[in-house]
Each structure stands twice: as C-alpha cells, then as structure tokens.
C-alpha cells in the first residue's frame, strides 16, 4: 500500500539516504533495521513529511504523494512515534495527545472532548494516568507511552514506530506489541524501527535493512533470515559475535571505589557497593530505580546525607565533576547523551578535548596541535565515523555520538568510569564494539560501574551484578555468564519484597 522508492536525502556533509526503498503491505509488521546512522530515522521523517527528499518518490495506494508537512502526512493516514521525545512539557497529557487535531467549536478548544479522547487512547495502552497531568511531571517511560498513545489517537492506516521501546520495560513493550498486532489484524501496516532484534523477530513479518542509506534487503519475509544473517546484512560483512577475553579481578586489594551505607537526599538508603580495579560491576534495575541519581550524587551533583564514599580506600567528599575527575580520576558517561553528554552544536574536537584542556594548556592557552593529536588518537581508538574532526557532534548518528561522549573520558585517562546506559539505541555492531571496549578498559585495570537496563548486556560484561530497586540495593550476585540462570536470579531479586525502610 505504501511504496517509497529511490529516496535520497543529504545533510551538510552527510548523505543520510542514498536511493533507499521501502515497500509496505497492509496487515503486516515491517521491521526497518540498520546500524546507527544507516538512515532509518531519516526515512521515517521523509515518510511523515518532516523532511522533503532530494530525490525519489513516495507512492500511497498507487498515487504519488508529496507531503508539505507532518499534518499532510497525517491526513494521508500516516501516523508516527519519532525517536526523539516530542511532547510539549507545559501542556497536559490530554492536550498533547490531541494537539495535532484539537477538537474545537468555532475555534475554541473543546476540552471535554479532548479529555475523553485522551482517556480512550491511554486506555488502549492500559495506562492509568490523569489526562490533566502536565507532561513535564511524567517519567521518561510514561512520556514515551503518552507519545505512543498520541500516535494511536488518530486512525492511521500506516503507523511508523521509531525505537518505541528504548525506554520501556518488557511489560510495557509487550502491551505495545499486543496493540500492534491488533492493528495489523484490522488491515493497518506498521513499520517498526528497533535495535532490539529479539523483539523484532518476535513481532515483525517482513524486513527492510538499510546500510549507509541504501536498502540492502527490501521487504523480505523475516522468517527467511536468522538473526546472524540479519546482522551480516546490516554490517555488510560476516559478523561474528565477540568473545570477550576472560579477566581476573584481584579482590584482595583495596577497592578502587567503595560506597558504604550511602544515603542521599534523593532517597537512597544505605547503599553499599564496591568496585575493584579491573572489575566491572553491573548495576541493574528497572527504569526509575534511581541508579542515575546515585551516580550523580556520587559526583557531587546531589546531596549525600549519610554514609561514606571511599576512593582507593581513602574517604572522600566530592563537590563536583571537575573535582571527581582531577582529584580522583572518576569519569561519568551520562545516559542522556544529547542533553548531558554532548555539545551538539560544537565540533567533535571540542567535545573530546574538553576534559583534557587543563592538561594541555600552556600558560592558560591551548596549542591547537596538541589538542588535535589527542582527539585524533581517540577518534581512531573508538572508530568514530565522521566527515572530519570539525564536524558538529549533533550531525553524527546515535552510535557515533555515544562514542564521542565516551572518548572524552578516555582521553582524560580515568581510573574509575561510571557508564550509564551506554548502548541505548545503538546498533548491534557498535554495541559489540562497545562491549569489547569496556571489557578491554577493565582489562587494563580500570574500575567500571556499568549502569544498564539491558540484562543481556550486564550478563555479557559484568563480573558481579548489583540489583537496585526503589533506590536501595536489593542484592548482589556473582555473574557466571550463564544468561538463563543469572537472569532468573536477578528477576527474583527485583520482585523480592522491598526491604522495609
């Protein structure tokens, strides 16, 4: 029913799409796969009228269509959940859901109808939220769900979902996919963009794979592929999943980082963790468990109300990130890379160099050459793909952005690294490269606190796993790398009765 053919789209310095083709049949779930930066989101944006293609055509029900804007696409029956959050924070849930077609009488907003409509859409997702709540007050996951409800509010025949489950729990994702199946059963077509291949294989019928802006598999039945074949297609060469070299951790030495009975203003109670040199401690928990806040409190960004932090055995009081870096060689790679990890409007050089300027400076001035050398070293080390070091960080794809965000801490030569959700929204190959890298860093003696909601990732990497729930540590277990056994124990910890406060 929908055919996009020969789509080409260039951004300054980058060709995001290069003759990509997407063919969509009614009543099916179509997976759109590809590495970071392959052009998936760009394709989605062209189909929904956000961008205009440089070349190529879009055919809907046999007729050429040209969308001048998102509304025109919507009227043509194409709904979308974009990869980025797109809600107006100051508006209520109801109004956000209804924004694209505010029910009105004589130009006045009909608020009752708006609320009723919002309740209906939230009901579809079994969401129990007050439609009058401001979106600003919602958690990331809730906002994501509202966004999906918004896409469902219009009766579209084609629904495009760009990584809808990146910040959802398994439960919430299941609910979403139940609706997706309902939709396809009534003749709708759904496009699903996701890096979680397990989900994709569970839900999708057909698949298109993009590589470097070209479609290398066009609307093939997914059943015909194995997981590895799909990965090979995305990567463009035979891809063997990495075997991480085994590491041994010396547990008798003083731990590099030690939290002893830590409480914070944010509500953490009696958190005790230790990370040894050369060790990866996986900190697992559902979204909202308070792991990010714990990391931030550690860095002095939130108040610590009790307990002690010890670095290499010595008790410390960290006031800010600068101090953490300079005095204790602690680095933190934040989860929100666009908001907190990167300077999107600055070149890669500045993004990587920012932590080493102090070291490079001579009389307060920074020699260009020294900076360039450092940056070149780490772009090479991490394989950051960019047109030039002068390219703006905001123009990179998600995976490369994350690499830049990590690079600055490597450049700063940290001993202790806290990595928060390092591979959210990152494709398999880059993800594997990241895993390899993190393991290697630990192998070189770095102490790593890995915060992740991706259990397979934790099981792959961590030496020990601490499970967090409701701002407290529920338990800790050694990781023997046997996914099924470990995951069972972790889930049991999560669902154990919370410790009374």
């Amino acid at each position, binding site marked *: 029913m929908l055919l996009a053919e020969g789509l080409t789209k*260039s951004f*300054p*310095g*980058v*060709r995001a799409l*290069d003759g990509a083709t997407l063919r969509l049949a009614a009543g099916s779930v179509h997976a759109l796969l590809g590495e970071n930066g392959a052009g998936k989101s760009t394709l989605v944006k062209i189909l929904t009228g956000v961008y205009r293609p440089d070349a190529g055509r879009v055919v809907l029900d046999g007729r050429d269509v040209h969308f001048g804007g998102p509304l025109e696409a919507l009227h043509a029956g194409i709904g979308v959940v974009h990869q980025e959050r797109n809600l107006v924070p100051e508006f209520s849930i109801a109004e956000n859901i209804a924004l694209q077609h505010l029910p009105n009488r004589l130009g006045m907003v009909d608020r009752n109808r708006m609320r009723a409509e919002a309740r209906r859409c939230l009901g579809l997702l079994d969401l129990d939220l007050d439609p009058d709540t401001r979106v600003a007050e919602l958690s990331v996951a809730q906002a994501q769900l509202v966004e999906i409800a918004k896409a469902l509010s219009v009766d579209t025949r084609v629904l495009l979902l760009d990584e809808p489950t990146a910040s959802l729990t398994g439960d919430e994702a299941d609910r979403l996919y139940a609706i997706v199946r309902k939709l396809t059963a009534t003749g709708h077509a759904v496009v699903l963009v996701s890096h979680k291949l397990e989900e994709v294989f569970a839900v999708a019928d057909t698949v298109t794979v993009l590589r*470097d*802006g070209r479609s290398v598999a066009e609307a093939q039945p997914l059943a015909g592929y194995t997981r590895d074949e799909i990965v090979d297609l995305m990567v463009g060469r035979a891809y063997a999943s990495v075997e991480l070299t085994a590491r041994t951790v010396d547990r008798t030495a003083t731990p590099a980082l030690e939290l002893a009975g830590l409480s914070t203003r944010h509500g953490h109670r009696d958190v005790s963790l230790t990370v040894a040199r050369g060790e990866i401690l996986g900190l697992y928990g559902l979204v909202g468990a308070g792991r990010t806040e714990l990391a931030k409190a550690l*860095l002095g*960004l939130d108040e610590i109300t009790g307990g002690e932090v010890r670095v290499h055995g010595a008790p410390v009081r960290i006031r*800010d*990130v*600068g101090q*953490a*870096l*300079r005095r204790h060689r602690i680095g*933190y790679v*934040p989860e929100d890379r666009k*908001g*907190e*990890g*990167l*300077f*999107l*409007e*600055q070149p890669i050089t*500045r993004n990587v160099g*920012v*932590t080493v*300027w*102090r070291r490079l*400076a001579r009389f*307060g*001035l*920074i020699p*260009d050459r020294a900076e360039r050398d450092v940056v070149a070293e780490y772009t*090479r*080390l991490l*394989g950051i*793909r*960019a*047109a*030039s070091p*002068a*390219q*703006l960080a905001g123009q990179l794809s998600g995976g490369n952005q994350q690499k830049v965000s990590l690079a*600055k801490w490597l450049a*700063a030569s940290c001993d202790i690294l806290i990595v928060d959700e390092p591979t959210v929204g990152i494709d398999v190959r880059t993800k594997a*490269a990241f895993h*390899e*890298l993190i393991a290697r860093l630990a192998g070189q003696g770095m102490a790593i606190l890995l915060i992740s909601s991706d259990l397979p990732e934790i099981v792959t990497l961590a030496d020990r796993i601490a499970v967090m729930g409701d701002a407290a540590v529920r338990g800790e277990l050694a990781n023997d790398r046997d996914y099924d056994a470990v995951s069972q124990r972790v889930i049991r910890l999560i669902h154990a009765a919370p410790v009374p406060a």
Partner: protein
Amino acid sequence: MKQEETTPEQRPPARLPLWANPRIGLVVLLIALIALFTTLRPAFLNTQLTLVPMQADISVYAVVGLSQLAVLSLGHMNMAVGRMAAMSAFASGLLHDRLDAPLLVALAGGLAVGALLGALAGLVISRTGVNSFVVTLALDFALIGLVSLLYATFTDGVAFNGLPAGMSALRTDTFADYCAGDVCGPEIPLLAPIALIAVLGVGLLFRWSRVGREVLMTGANAKAAELSGIPVRWRVVQAHALSGLLAGLAGFLLSANNGSFSAGVGDGFLLPSFLAPVLGGTLLVGGAVSVLGTVLGTAITQVIYKGLNLLQFQVDELKLYIGLVLLAALSLDRLRHVLAERRGVPA
C-alpha cells in the same frame, strides 16, 4: 580494532568559497558602503574630520560590542552594559577627584568596579538560575538610580570636573602628533590601540585559552559542561565579570572621547552593544562568538551612521534609513548563509 574508513558517501566538506566566509562578506559590505558614501560625499575620506573621529568612535563601540559578546558567548545578555560603564566611569572620576589618582590608577579602579558589578550579576545568575536578561535588567534599573544618587552626593553637578593628566591627549591626539625625527605616526587616535588590546585579548581568550573555551562550552550546553568537569557557575561569573570589565573600559574610552566623567556615560550603549556582535555573526544562543566580526560589525554601523550624517538627513529619515540599512545588511548575511547551506558548506 582498526577502523580508519570514512564512508565514501560522507564527502569531506568542500573548501569554503570566499563569499561563504561571513567575515569576508562583512569586509565586502564595509568596502561597498565606504565606496558608496565616498561617491556621494567625497568628504567621507577627510582625515581630520571624518576618519579620525570615526576611528575613535569605532574604538569605543567595538569595546562596547565586546562587552556584550562576553556574555553572548554564554547565551546570556547584559542589559546593564551602559550602567556598568557609568558606574565604572564614576569610580575613575572619584579616584581622580578625591585621591588625585593618576590616569592608570583611575583606569584600574574603574575597571575593577565594572568587573565587580559584572561578577555580581554573574553570581546572582549562576546561583539562582534566573534568566540573565531579567537579572541584568533589574540591575540596570537599580544602577540608573544609584549612578545619579552618587553623582548628586559626590559632585556639585552631574560630572567630575577635571580629568587625570594625559586623558585629554587620548581624545585630541593622533599618532601623527608624535614624531621621531621626521617620521611621524599614522593618523590614528591614541584610543585605538587601547581598544585593539581589548580586541586581541578577548580574541585570544575565546580562541585559545582554556577559560574562554570552557565559557563557550558552558554556553553551548551547560548541563553537559557541568558533567564534563567544567566549573560552570564560576565560568558564568567570569564571563559576566569580563563583560563588566569591558563595559568599564568602554566607559573610560567614552569619557576620554567626550572629555569628562559624567553620569550620562553609557546611556547609548545598549543597542550598539547588540548590533555589532550580531552583525558580526555572533549568535544569541551562546557557544560561538566572533571577535573579528564584532569589530567589523562596529565599523559597519559607524560607517553607516557617519555616511548618513554626511548626507544630512533629518531626524526621521536618518532613523528610518539606519533601520532599513541594518535590516538589509542582516538579510543579506542571512541570504549568504542560506546559499552556503544549500551548497552544503557550513557557514
């Protein structure tokens, strides 16, 4: 893990065509304006009556522009530039009047007061997180009152009579008045090198120094800056202090140019302070500044002003044309930007 490839699709950026360089565009515009005004009024090239005073004015207003640029780098504004200049000039005047301070001491005192006021604004902004526009606007209100109360208290009128020795030379003399043997200097007012030092200093700061760069990074994304170990609050205070310092310098230069430390110093600073950096390509969102552009922007506004003055427009026409020329210049620059974008070169 050797991955040196850059995908062939990602063309390396084309070499910047000359017209796409914003600074070149400004230079061309400047030359065109000078040519236009010279054709219409040959007196435009009169050294004594046009070029020398114009250089002095450019010196003053370039520093005014830099003062605003110092906080634009953060994405902030300083609505109190004029009043900081006035307070600073008051301090210089008081130092000379009461303590008979020589030129350099009076200048240093004035600059210190300006920097302190700026730091105060920066402190309030960084501590409360309130928008800089609001804080400096309120500060401006407060200082308007304070300046005249102070002048009323410490002088019998609205100005200090008497200037430190050497200050009137700054106004009247050019390097041509100083000769070594038969070789005399060029017709450049003595104010110009002072402004030049400020320009070079600020340029150096933002281009090469760590502090300047960290200020820019703070302007680009304060959250990320904080999480990268930059002392964000301190940088905000520093940038505002620099703005105050430069405002103070501008106040001093204007006092020298006008011939007295008076309460009216800085009254007309606010609009030019924005015009020059913006014409020069500094954005209001922070994270990027153009010092050279600011100087060119100042030069362009002063040339326009001078040219229109020579054409002897009446009040209403003068304002009308200044506004129109500004709009045209900005739109042209915008057009250049769009064209550059279309050709795929970052501008």
